């Protein structure tokens, strides 16, 4: 195992931390406590400032066979950043420079440790727009790519993967790779860059990201649509998409969870009526276009017994709705045993919701559920009572089985990390997992990078 002094020689003495009490917050992520993996006892925290320093650290670790766990913003919710074996936590926080917002090419170049919120601000200040919005603005740019985060605004433009154009990464043997660039087309060989997206710290340390940007839309509006019945709300979603309207986002939330989030933030959920809600974000080249879309969406919702439809157009009113939605998980976290991330084909979301309800009834519990409805991506929240009754895993697996039967997956955006691995036996296997392990061996022959995470 590497010792602190060897690391200090690479990064300087201020950036190596060995005292446990100074690194507590680096040993956990945002995973619910009931399922959060336990961090190992002997951990050194190192904070390099450049790809070159990371290269030196990885070469050393590879030589000494010391496990290295990569850490971005620590907002992951599947235990991916937790050092589960004795070794090193490598934080990318000092790689925190936005190198360029390139307005001519519509790209942003940011180091991996830039906070997502800071990048959004820089992009907005330059008059441009970055569509995806995973809820945690304190996540890091490298973490977003490592997790291929999804989030709220994926309906129209897609998830993080659709925006990555270039990546710099250091692989476990120490080489620094530059993949892609400010390019919209690139067929020069196999696309290694895309392997790094959702690699969750298993193939290399991402040190720099080039994202594509969009021009800012001219007009936008957020509809909050209230229903008395969750199934009516969910059934509306495929119909909106089939009607030819592609909103920036369609989110599904319920009163019991959204009000907890609003209260925690000292805000108020704007809809007084209804129990279940769709949040539909519309954008267009003119206000008229937004209203024309709003009219069609409203007609569909009213056909499905919507009881009220509100519109937010002021920037801060729209931002408040997004904020309350984004913070739902943080506000529930203490009472949640596990937040699932199942994803089914978009048209099956109503059936999936029925299944969740049936399972909840059968186990005599409530399962608050919200999610990115148009993406078929739901987050059923398994509450602590299930953990205390010892049936958490059973309920979880039944939900997984239903999702898989519908052609779905057990994680759509959070990734496997540590906490999803034990249930992978439910997923169709074939040769895929074997190939994935083979790829991992090519990049990381000694399995030093995030061992035990993201792969069986």
């Amino acid at each position: 195992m590497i010792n602190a002094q060897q690391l200090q020689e690479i990064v300087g003495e201020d950036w190596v931390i060995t005292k446990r009490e100074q690194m507590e917050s680096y040993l956990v992520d945002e995973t619910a406590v009931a399922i959060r993996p336990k961090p190992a006892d002997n951990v050194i925290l190192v904070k390099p400032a450049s790809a070159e320093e990371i290269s030196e650290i990885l070469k050393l670790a590879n030589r000494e066979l010391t496990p290295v766990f990569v850490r971005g913003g620590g907002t992951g919710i599947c235990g991916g950043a937790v050092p589960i074996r004795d070794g090193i936590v490598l934080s990318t926080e000092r790689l925190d420079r936005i190198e360029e917002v390139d307005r001519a090419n519509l790209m942003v170049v940011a180091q991996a440790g830039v906070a997502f919120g800071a990048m959004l601000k820089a992009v907005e200040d330059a008059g441009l727009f970055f569509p995806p919005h995973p809820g945690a603005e304190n996540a890091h740019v490298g973490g977003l790519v490592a997790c291929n985060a999804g989030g709220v605004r994926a309906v129209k433009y897609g998830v993080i993967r659709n925006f990555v154009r270039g990546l710099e990464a250091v692989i476990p043997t120490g080489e620094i790779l530059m993949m892609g660039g400010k390019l919209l087309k690139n067929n020069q060989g196999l696309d290694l860059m895309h392997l790094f997206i959702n690699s969750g710290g298993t193939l290399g340390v991402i040190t720099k990201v080039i994202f594509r940007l969009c021009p800012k839309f001219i007009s936008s509006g957020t509809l909050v649509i209230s229903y008395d019945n969750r199934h009516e709300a969910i059934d509306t979603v495929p119909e909106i998409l089939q009607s030819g309207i592609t909103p920036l986002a369609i989110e599904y939330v319920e009163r019991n969870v959204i009000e907890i989030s609003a209260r925690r933030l000292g805000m108020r959920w704007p809809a007084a009526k209804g129990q279940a809600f769709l949040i539909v974000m519309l954008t267009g080249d003119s206000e008229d276009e937004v209203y024309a879309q709003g009219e069609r969406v409203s007609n569909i919702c009213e056909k499905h017994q919507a009881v009220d439809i509100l519109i937010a157009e002021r920037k801060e009113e729209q931002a408040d709705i997004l904020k309350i939605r984004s913070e739902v998980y943080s506000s529930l976290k203490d009472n949640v045993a596990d937040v699932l991330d199942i994803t089914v084909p978009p048209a099956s979301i109503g059936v999936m919701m029925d299944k969740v309800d049936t399972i909840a009834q059968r186990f005599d519990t409530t399962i608050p559920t919200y999610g990115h409805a148009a993406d078929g991506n739901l987050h059923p929240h398994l509450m602590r009572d299930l953990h205390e009754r010892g049936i958490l895993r059973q309920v979880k697996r039944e939900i997984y089985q239903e999702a898989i039967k519908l052609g779905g997956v057990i994680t759509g955006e959070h990734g496997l990390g540590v906490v999803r691995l034990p249930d992978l036996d439910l997923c169709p296997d074939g040769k895929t997992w074997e190939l994935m392990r083979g790829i991992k061996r090519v990049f990381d022959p000694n399995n030093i990078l995030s061992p035990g995470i993201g792969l069986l």
Partner: protein
Amino acid sequence: MPELLKVSITEDINRRSGASLRIIVPMKQVPDMRQVKFDTEKGKVDRSSAAAEINPFDLHALETAVQLKEKLGAAVTAISMGPRRAEVALRDALARGADSAVLLEDSKFAGADTLATSYTLACAIRKLGGFDLIICGEKTVDGDTGQVGPELAEHLNIPHLAYVSKLVEAGEKLVAVCDMEGEAHIVEASLPVLLMVTKDINIPRLPTFRDKAMARKAEVTIWNAEELSSFADPSRFGIEGSPTRVRKVFLPSEEGRKGKIFRNTNEEAISDVAQAILDFLG
């Protein structure tokens, strides 16, 4: 306990007994202050640099009016002085519950300071006929003076209550909580009266989509200087009626966080830390 001060204001102009309240909400369209740029050379806000919207404080004023309307019955009129594009703000007010909207638009109104603005608004309110309540926001986010409300009350010769954070009673008389720098004063006033409300008074509602879609096409009454002439001295409009001169506008520079690492633990290092704290505290 905050000191509770009771003030009774007894003037009563234009009060119609029995009928529902007539409420006027003056509103201003302001640039989105998070985006707006300052033209430091000209000493002005560059209004073209950001989208325009209703002054956020005015939304709380409108919400107060609409809640009174729901409880007691009222006719709510939103009124704004500004260029034609301020119609958008007034239409938003209609969607959020105002019953009618008046825009005061004329090049003669341009360049107005708070005195000329409040004067012009007062003339228009006289033209509107009677009223029981005028509800303003605490201030605007672009000018930040908080002067238009009290000046308006003076022009109309009615009392005003500033920093109203709660209405305790509204009907024949009005009882309000006014936040006065850490003290809450409970004040009683007879109508008509002008209120300036803080953001604590309520959370403005969102309009329904249908109301907003309809309001986008709604008629806004537009009055020019000529139409106010029988209620006004035109030399008090706009820049001509504005004694205020802005000498200079500047932006305070933003200082980021500055860290300093002290490595040693000896006496000398400790006094260095103490000195750094003292320096910081000035």
